[in-house]
C-alpha cells in the first residue's frame, strides 16, 4: 500500500491536468465528450505530439532540441513553394524525413562530438534555417499545399483521424524501443551519469548523436503532418512549438537527464495542451485571462507533483 501510494505520487503532473480538464469538459460541455469530437481536437496537436517524442528523447540524455521550428518551417516551405516540382508524395515524404535526419545529425555532431551548448547549437540551426527560408521566400513565396496531402490528413480509421493514429503508433513504438531495446538503456544510463556510462562501456557520444537524429526524424514527421493540415505554406512558425514541446515533456514528468513519466507522460502533456485550448476557446476566455489561466494551471499541476516528489 505504501509503495502504491509512493508510486502514485510520482505520476507526472500531466495526468492530473488532463483529468481535471477532461472533468471540466464533461461537466460543462458534455456534447464534446465523444470520440469523433475529441479526435478532431487531438488531431490539432498531433504535430506537437510527434515533435515531443524527439524532445523527450534528447532531454533524457541531458540535451535539448530547439531546431524543430526550423525543420518544420523548411519542410513546410519546400512542399508549398513548388520548388520540388511535381514530386510524388512518397518522394516528398522521404525527402522530408531525410532533411529532418540531416538536421538532427548536424545537431548531434555539434552537441555530442564538438560538445557545444545544445541550446545555442539548435537555436542557431533554427535561426539559420528560418533565415534561409525567408531568403528563398523573397524570391519565391510559398503557395498551395498539394491537395493529396490535405486529403490524407482528413482520413479517419473509424472515428479516429489518421494523424492521431500516426502519433499514437509512433509513441507506442518509442515506448517499446526505449523499454525493450538496448538503446533505451543507453539513454537511461547517459541521462543518469554520462561519465559512469562511458566507463560502463556505453557509447555515450553515439547515444546522444542518435537521440538527436531521431529527434530530427520526428521533427520531419511532425513537419509533414503539420504541412498536410494547412492549405498554404507559412513563413513564420516561431519557437513556440519547441518551447511548448519542452514544457509538455516536463509536464509529462521527464526532465533533463531523468524520466519518471516514461513515454506516455509527455504524450499526456501534449493532450493537456489540446484540451487547454478547447476549454479556453469554448468558454470564450478573453486573451489576458487565457494567458493567466494557462500559466496557473501548469504551475498548479507542477506544484502538486513537486510537493509529492519532494525529498523527505
Amino acid at each position, binding site marked *: 500500500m*505504501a509503495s502504491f501510494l509512493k508510486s502514485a505520487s510520482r505520476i507526472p503532473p500531466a495526468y492530473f491536468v488532463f483529468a481535471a480538464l477532461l472533468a471540466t469538459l464533461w461537466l460543462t460541455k458534455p456534447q464534446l465528450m465523444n470520440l469523433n469530437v475529441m479526435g478532431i481536437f487531438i488531431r490539432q496537436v498531433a504535430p506537437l505530439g510527434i515533435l515531443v517524442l524527439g524532445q523527450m528523447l534528447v532531454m533524457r540524455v541531458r540535451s535539448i532540441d530547439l531546431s524543430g521550428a526550423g525543420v518544420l518551417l523548411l519542410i513546410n516551405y519546400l512542399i508549398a513553394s513548388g520548388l520540388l516540382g511535381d514530386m510524388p508524395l512518397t518522394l516528398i515524404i522521404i525527402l522530408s524525413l531525410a532533411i529532418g535526419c540531416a538536421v538532427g545529425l548536424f545537431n548531434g555532431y555539434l552537441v555530442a562530438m564538438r560538445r557545444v551548448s545544445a541550446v545555442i547549437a539548435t537555436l542557431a540551426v533554427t535561426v539559420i534555417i528560418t533565415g534561409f527560408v525567408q531568403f528563398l521566400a523573397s524570391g519565391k513565396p510559398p503557395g498551395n499545399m498539394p491537395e493529396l496531402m490535405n486529403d490524407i490528413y482528413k482520413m479517419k480509421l473509424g472515428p479516429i483521424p489518421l494523424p492521431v493514429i500516426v502519433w499514437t503508433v509512433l509513441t507506442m513504438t518509442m515506448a517499446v524501443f526505449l523499454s*525493450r*531495446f*538496448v*538503446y*533505451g*538503456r*543507453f539513454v*537511461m*544510463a547517459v541521462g*543518469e*551519469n554520462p*561519465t*559512469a*556510462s*562511458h*566507463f*560502463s*562501456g*556505453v*557509447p*555515450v*557520444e*553515439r*547515444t546522444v548523436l*542518435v537521440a538527436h537524429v531521431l529527434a530530427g526524424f520526428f521533427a520531419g514527421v511532425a513537419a509533414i503532418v503539420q504541412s498536410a493540415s494547412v492549405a498554404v505554406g507559412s513563413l513564420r512558425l516561431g519557437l513556440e512549438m519547441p518551447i511548448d514541446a519542452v514544457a509538455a515533456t516536463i509536464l509529462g514528468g521527464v526532465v533533463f537527464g*531523468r524520466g519518471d513519466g516514461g513515454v506516455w507522460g509527455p504524450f499526456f502533456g501534449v493532450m493537456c495542451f489540446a484540451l487547454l485550448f478547447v476549454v479556453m476557446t469554448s468558454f470564450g476566455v478573453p486573451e489576458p485571462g487565457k494567458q493567466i489561466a494557462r500559466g496557473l494551471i501548469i504551475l498548479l499541476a507542477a506544484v502538486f507533483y513537486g510537493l509529492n516528489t519532494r525529498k523527505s
Partner: protein
Amino acid sequence: MLPAVSMKGVTKAFGSTLAVDDVSFEISPGRVHALMGENGAGKSTLMKMLAGVHRPDSGEIRIAGQVVTFADPRQALAAGISTVFQELSLLPNLTIAENMFLGKEIVGQFGIPVRAAMTARTSDALAELGMTIDPNTLVSELSIAERQFVEIAHGIKADAQVFILDEPTAALNAADVEVLNAQIRKLKAAGKAIIYISHRMDEIFAMCDDVTVMKDGRHVSTQPLNTLTPDALIALMVGRDLEDLFPCRATNLGHVVLSCRDLVLPAGTEPLSFDLHAGEILGIAGLEGQGQSEIVRSFIGQVPGTHGALSVNNTPVKLPLARQVGVRSMQRQRVGFVPEDRKEEGLLLGAPISENIGISLQSARPGFKPLIRLRETVIRIMKEMRVKAESPNMPVGALSGGNQQKVLLGRYLASDMDILIIEEPTRGVDIGAKAEIYRLLRDLAEQGKAIIVLSRETVELIGLCDNILVVHDRKIVAKMLGCEATEHAILNAALKT
C-alpha cells in the same frame, strides 16, 4: 566529565529499511572513538544524524548536556560538530580555497571576499597535511586522493568541538594515513572529541581509544580498544571468526594474456613494459600520483598522448586508443576496467542495482538489439557479492558505501571478463566483505582469468597479488613476488631511496 556528545535511543528508518535502530552512543572530549561495523551497519547514518543531514525518527541528541535538534548541517556546524563525509563532497567548480572557506568566507570592505587571506590560510592548512598544491586550483582538477586531503583539511580546520571522520582514509595510502594520524593526535591533545570510522584495522588500533561496534543498525558493544584484539574486534563486527583474510596464492601461471610494450606516458621519459599471465593477480604499487592509474587508464584510451603497443590475447592494440571508444573496444577484447571513483565514474546512482549490474552486458550489444534478460544473473551476483539491499530495484545511491562497491564489482563479474583491471578493489569495504572480495578475485584467477590491481593499501597488495610492480615517476622501478614482498621493501622502492 560531561560527554561532548551523547545520543540516546536514536532510530532512523528509510522506507522499510531500519538503518539505525535504538542506538545510544557517547563520546568524551579528548578521546578518539572508533565506530566499527560491516557495510550497511548504519555508521554513516548515525553520524549523519549528528551532523544534521538526517533527522532522527526518535531518540535524543545532547551536545555538552544540552538537547539539540538540527534542521540542517549548518546548525550542527554552529553547534560545534564538523564532519568529513564518507562520500566525497567538495564542489568541483570551486577552488580548494573556496571550498575550504565556503559558508565562512573572510570578507573585507563592502562584503567583498578577501581572496588573498583565504588563499594564504588554505595554503597553511594544506601544508600541515604535507600538501604544496596551489589553493586556487579547481577541485575538479584534483586526483581523488588530493580531494580526500582537501576534505580532511576542511573538516579538521573547522572551529569545532566534535570531529566526525567517516572513512577519511579510504582513498589514502599508508604514508598519507600517517599524516592524518598526526593531525588527529593534535586535535586530541587540544581536548576535542573525534569519531573515527574506518575499515582498516591497523588504523583503528593505531589511533583510537575506544570503539563502538554496530551491526544491522543496532548497537553491539562499546569498550576501550586496549581490551580487544583485532580478531576479537572482527568477531564482534562480523558475528563470527574470520579465518584467513587472504586466500592462497596461485601455484602456477598460464600464458601471457596481456602484454604491454614500450608504453610511454605523456609526462614519462622511459618506456615501460610488463606482462600479465592467465591466472595471475598483478599489483601495481607506488606513492600517490606517480602514474599508476595513468598506466592502466592508458589501456582504455583515457590518457591522451601515450604511445606504445599492447597485446591482448595475442591481438595487437595500438596506443593511444581514442577516448570515446577505448572502454568499449577493450570490453570487446574481454578486458574490464573498474574505476576507483565509483560515484563519478562507476555507478549510475539513481538507477536500480539491477541496471547497474547489467549495463555492461547490455552495452556489449548494439543499440537496436532487444535487451537480454538478466534477472537471474543479477540475483546470482547480488547473492555472490552479498549485497545488502531490499531488492534489485533499489537505486544504488541508497546503498551504504561498501555495498555500492560490491555492486560495481558485480557488474564486471556479471560480464565475465577475461582480464580485469581494478583500481582500488576494496575502497570502503568492511573487513568481512574484503575477505570475500579477495577470495572472489582469487577464484577468478584460478579459473584462468587475469587481474591487475591498483591499491593504496600495501598490505592488500602483498596479501593478494602474485606479482607486484612498483612505480615511481611513471617508471617501473621494481618488480617483486607477492610472497616475498614486504611493506618496507615496497616503500623503499616507491621512494626510490
